[in-house]
């Protein structure tokens, strides 16, 4: 895309941002002229803007202001509506909306009955209209901040967003005056937010993106091969999220309150709303400090309530919820038919990822070489709440100049559906009797692909054999000391966080094995201490072109293998 001929933007006035449109909160970001992604704060200074709209006497409140209305004005406050967009009433889960305006059926879509004008009459507002209003506010915030009319955006959506949902979102955005350049998957946006950093290098890696949101959690395994991303597996939990952790806090304080006052604040809707509101703040505070307090005025029956909780206590209480998070991550790795050893990176995204314990527990699952990108485990981690918005902004900066048609053609299945290598391709080294395999193209590499590598020649130089093979990785389990065999078998499955007891763990490592030789090439007369460069090019039809030459040498040995299909 973007040749000299047609790369010139059709609409010169296009000014695009990245929007992360979440069920509980949204973020807007753009790429600054210096090339850095920055998340834009709205007029209240929030970078995570709650996806909530509230109405009092025809006045519209948005974001944090609207969130505060959940206590006093819950019936006119619309929250958690993103997942209802483009769905019919039968297929939605209205649970998150128990404490706000309730979703209702309206024709084939979902609507909310709220009083959004000054008159006393109630209006039925469809979820599309609510989305439009929400996006309009986001657009306004971005426009105010940037001082230039924002009219286009890349918006992130969950990986399981259906076509109907996508269409509804695009239509709503259009009504809000935003041209949707592209909808991109949230986990991919998170990976890209990291890869777009100037210090990042293009490497082949397998990444688990754990997007732990406010009301739902999505985990995906993504293969990054030469900068191209392929989602290998996804897992979703619609009940697990920050709200589950809030519930732990709520229950904890409610019990404490009941000990003193014999009434359950959770029975009273307003008391519950207040507790939820403050409890969320307490939970977030616990992610940063070891202690956090909670104080609610007139929680129930006019009683003011205040208490503190420390992090250890919270972590103890939330053990089960944490196990669910880690379980979800393990589940998705298994679903991708991979082993935890294969995973090079775990990226934590979403608000609940700030919780330190989740990252720590996840780190325990994975081997040490796996990078865990969460604020509590890595200093270089980007704020998890900002990841998808940053990724979207990066993509927006890439496609902003493109023609509409150019974008559409590029995201067409004709282009995106590509064959992927099922086995790794590499070079086999035979020294004496032992043979080792060095992968050059990893499995799940999108084709066509090309890799170049340099290998050292034997010290004394001379003629060299290059044996190109397909390889497979195997997991070698070695036992440090022969113990009971059953235990080890069980151990492979659950290396969970609570297996802290002193236990001899198996040493598990990845071993590459040559499976099928593909070709052999010879480089003759390599100088002593010289290097040999190998270039492998794989066509979409599995045809191969291999070229081997000595670095600095002029002649190359070339060969091609015809593709099968």
């Amino acid at each position, binding site marked *: 895309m973007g040749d000299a001929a047609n790369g010139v933007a059709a609409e010169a006035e296009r000014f695009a941002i990245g929007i992360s449109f979440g069920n509980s909160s949204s973020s807007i970001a753009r790429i600054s002229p210096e090339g850095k992604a920055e998340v834009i704060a709205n007029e209240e200074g929030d970078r995570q803007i709650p996806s909530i709209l509230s109405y009092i006497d025809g006045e519209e409140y948005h974001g944090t202001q609207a969130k505060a209305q959940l206590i006093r004005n819950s019936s006119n406050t619309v929250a958690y509506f993103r997942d209802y967009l483009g769905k019919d009433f039968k297929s939605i889960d209205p649970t998150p909306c128990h404490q706000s305006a309730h979703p209702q059926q309206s024709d084939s879509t979902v609507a909310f009955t709220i009083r959004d004008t000054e008159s006393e009459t109630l209006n039925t507002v469809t979820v599309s209209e609510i989305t439009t209003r929400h996006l309009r506010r986001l657009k306004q915030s971005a426009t105010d901040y940037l001082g230039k009319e924002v009219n286009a955006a890349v918006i992130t959506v969950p990986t399981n967003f259906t076509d109907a949902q996508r269409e509804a979102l695009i239509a709503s955005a259009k009504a809000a005056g935003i041209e949707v350049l592209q909808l*991109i*998957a949230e986990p991919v946006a998170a990976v890209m937010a990291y890869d777009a950093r100037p210090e990042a290098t293009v490497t082949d890696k397998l990444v688990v993106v754990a997007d732990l949101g406010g009301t739902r959690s999505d985990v995906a395994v993504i293969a990054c091969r030469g900068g*191209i991303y*392929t989602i290998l597996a996804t897992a979703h939990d619609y009940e697990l999220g920050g709200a589950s952790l809030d519930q732990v806090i709520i229950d904890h304080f409610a019990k404490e309150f009941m000990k003193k006052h014999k009434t359950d604040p959770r029975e009273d809707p307003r008391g519950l709303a207040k507790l939820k509101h403050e409890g969320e703040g307490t939970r977030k505070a616990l992610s940063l400090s070891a202690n956090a307090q909670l104080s609610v005025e007139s929680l129930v029956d006019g009683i003011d309530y205040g208490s503190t909780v420390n992090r250890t206590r919270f972590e103890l209480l939330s053990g089960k919820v944490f196990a669910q998070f880690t379980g979800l991550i393990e589940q998705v790795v298994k679903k991708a038919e991979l082993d935890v050893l294969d995973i090079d990176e775990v990226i934590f995204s979403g608000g609940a990822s700030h919780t330190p314990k989740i990252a720590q527990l996840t780190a325990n699952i994975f081997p040490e070489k796996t990078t865990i990108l969460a604020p509590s485990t890595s200093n270089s981690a980007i704020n998890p709440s900002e990841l998808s918005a940053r990724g979207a902004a990066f993509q927006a900066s890439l496609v902003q100049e493109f023609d509409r048609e150019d974008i559409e053609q*590029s995201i067409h299945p004709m282009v995106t559906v590509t064959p992927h290598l099922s*086995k790794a391709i590499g070079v086999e080294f035979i*020294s004496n009797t032992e043979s080792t395999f060095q992968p050059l193209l990893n499995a799940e590499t999108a084709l066509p692909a090309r890799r170049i590598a340099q*290998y050292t020649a034997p010290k004394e130089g001379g003629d060299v054999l290059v044996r190109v093979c397909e390889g497979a990785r195997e997991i070698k389990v070695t036992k440090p000391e022969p113990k009971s065999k059953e235990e080890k078998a069980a151990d492979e499955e659950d290396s969970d966080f609570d297996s802290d007891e002193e236990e001899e763990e198996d040493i598990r490592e990845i071993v590459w094995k040559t499976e099928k030789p593909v070709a052999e090439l010879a480089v003759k007369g390599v100088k002593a201490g010289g290097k040999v460069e190998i270039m492998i090019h794989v066509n979409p039809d*599995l045809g191969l072109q291999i070229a081997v030459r000595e670095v600095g040498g002029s002649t190359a040995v070339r060969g091609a293998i015809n593709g099968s299909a």
Partner: protein
Amino acid sequence: MASVQVVNVPLPSLPSGWSADKDFKPIGALSAATQRNIEPVGPHFLAHARRKRHARTFSEDERIQAQQNVKKTEEEEDDDISEDEDPVMLTRDAKDWKAQDHYAVLGLTKYRWRATPEQIKRAHRKKVLRHHPDKKAAMGQRDENDNFFKCIQKATELLLDPVRRRQFDSVDEAADVEPPSKKDLQKGNFYKLWGPVFKAEGRFSIKQPVPQLGNEDSTQEEVETFYNFWYNFDSWRTFEYLDEDIPDDGEGRDQKRHTEKKNANARRKRKSEDIARLRELVDECLALDERIKKFRQQARAGKDAKRKAKEDEAKRLAEEKERAKVEEEQRKKEAEETAKAEREKNKKSKEAAKNAAKKNKRVLKGSVKDVNYFADGEASAAQVDSVLTDVDLVMAKIDTDELAALAERLTIAGKDSGAVKAAWAAESKRLVDAGKLKDGDVKTFA
């Protein structure tokens, strides 16, 4: 894209006895691939999409992209300021800054009034890097001459001040384009020769954008807009730059005021001269503009066509009138002729009637005479007279038709006295009945 992995593992040496054609031995094929959806995001995906859509290979794509990148950097260098410096200019005295060409000093002669402040800043920086006195000292030039550096500073200071830049642009003769001479015009293209003139003049316009001269295919509207614009030209051109320096040494207020007055007058004069000059220029251009003639011809052709149509119409109307008149006359004539014929016919018939009446009267008179005036034997004079009186009376009272009928009846009656008398009696009776005669008027036929 194609980053090189370096693997520090020694490759095995070639086993003895290994040989293959061209040192390449294919052994097997790859395992079947899995079809997966790649995520359409990121720069590498865009590169992939570009390759796939244009069916390019890696190396082709790299080459094309590289070419594009090269082009871009070249353009950037292009607009960087790298003009040769006139050695004469380098020896200028900074005190004489008013006479210097500030754009030439900064190497912006290609851009002049089009140069953006950004370009001026960059040009300044580039020049400073080269001409800073410290640089010269470092290069071993011992002359402490920083005159040209001062020129650069002066030029930048002036050009970055929008008001002073306008003043300089107003009198920047190097940016003017002389109107083409008649000789040039005979040879060259009118539009190519005049276009740049107006483009250059257009820089003084307060109203932007300035309409362009266009070409021979411009519509009448465009051409009219163009000339209207230039005849109502609103210029920001000022001539302060050419002011005589006002002595500020306090030599005397009078002197200062005198100079100020002189300057103001000179500016006014120059301004009006400029307006007149521009007017003349536009007049000249307009006079030579083929399009005006073309439009006039077109207009005339249109008018002629209209007039012709009008005339034709008038002619047609006149002809119609003429024809109507002729027809009318014809009709009149015919009518007259018929009337005349009628009249003659009437006359004839009247005469015939007259003759017939005469004849009938004769018959009437003869009838009584034939029957001997109803007298047996010789009729007495009185008898004859009374009968004839009665006959005359009846004859006077009846019209020609009745006369004819009576005459017929009398002819039939012949010489029969009784019959004649009866006929007469019947006639007179009819007349009495009709009230034309009084009973008793006619006595002889009773």
